[in-house]
């Protein structure tokens, strides 16, 4: 092979995802096997009481411990530290982060990889707001909040990427490591901060339109608290970056 070997590490932070996990592993494995790309899937489970880890063990038996890695933590510690934890065990030079609740379809991973190669991007971000991107399972109110929040973010931060709160992305490993050192926010704001800091540090960002299908199993969450913390985070980024 002429170019340096590429390996993709998919980080899957989970908490009570026993229903979704087999599917969210099966789908990318199939797609990686079809494309022939080197890969590994790292499951970072935060001590789920529902048996997510047993499911992961079964998947390791089926696919092999070189392809599926379970790197659990004792309790729920948040997304940011889950990525740091997962990266410690990642052997790929590219990291893919996605939600483990099937709202992010692994079929887009080959498109992320293709876009990254074409533009030699440091980051490729999935976007619900461009091209064929979109959502499923959201009512009008939720769509309005999402569009409004996105518009406000674009106006205030001019981030040069159309979907800041999404969490389906591909990073060069060293870029993600660098960003993890810089980012301090939590939740939605954490995803926003990653893009804003990436721009500050001069990293290039490509985009792939994705369809976001809201949770098939389990509860989806968007409460008043989330809106307040989103606004707080947005204003913090507005004032500090």
């Amino acid at each position, binding site marked *: 092979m002429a170019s340096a070997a590429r390996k993709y590490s998919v980080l899957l932070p989970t908490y009570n995802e026993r229903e979704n996990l087999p*599917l969210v592993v099966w789908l990318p494995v199939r797609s990686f096997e079809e494309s022939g790309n080197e890969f590994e899937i790292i499951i970072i489970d935060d001590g789920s009481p529902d048996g997510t880890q047993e499911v992961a063990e079964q998947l390791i*038996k089926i696919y092999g411990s070189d392809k599926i890695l379970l790197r659990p933590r004792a309790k729920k510690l948040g997304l940011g530290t889950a990525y740091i934890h997962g990266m410690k065990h990642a052997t790929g030079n590219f990291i893919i982060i996605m939600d483990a609740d099937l709202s992010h379809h692994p079929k887009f991973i080959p498109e992320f990889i293709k876009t990254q190669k074409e533009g030699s991007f440091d980051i490729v971000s999935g976007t619900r707001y461009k091209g064929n991107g979109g959502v499923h399972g959201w009512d009008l109110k939720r769509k*309005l909040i999402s*569009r409004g929040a996105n518009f406000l973010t674009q106006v205030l931060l001019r981030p040069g990427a159309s979907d800041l709160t999404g969490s389906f992305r591909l990073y060069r490993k060293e870029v993600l490591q660098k960003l993890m050192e810089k980012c301090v926010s939590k939740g939605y704001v954490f995803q926003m901060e990653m893009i804003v800091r990436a721009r500050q540090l001069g990293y290039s960002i490509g985009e792939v339109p994705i369809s976001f299908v809201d949770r*098939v199993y389990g509860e989806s969450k968007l409460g008043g608290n989330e809106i307040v913390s989103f606004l707080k985070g947005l204003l913090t980024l507005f004032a500090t970056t």
Partner: protein
Amino acid sequence: MTKLLQWLGSLALLGGIWAALMLDLVGLHAFSPSWYQVLWALPTYLLVTLGCYSLGVVGYRLATFNDCQAASLELQAQIREARADLARRGMKF
């Protein structure tokens, strides 16, 4: 420079130009009194225009937000396929 400072800077610049024209600090005497009525209300017009533009953009994007029905159906089908395949390989759900 933070985004906040960029905004404050731009606003101060525009506000400065506006105030200079309103108070005729440049000494141009370029405007007739009827012009001053327009100039006086200009910031309000701009604000209202901006608000309308924002509502228009958000409304348009809301109306054209793709509803990915096909993606959902595809996923449902793949979930059945995946479960069958995994069960065949010895997975206990």
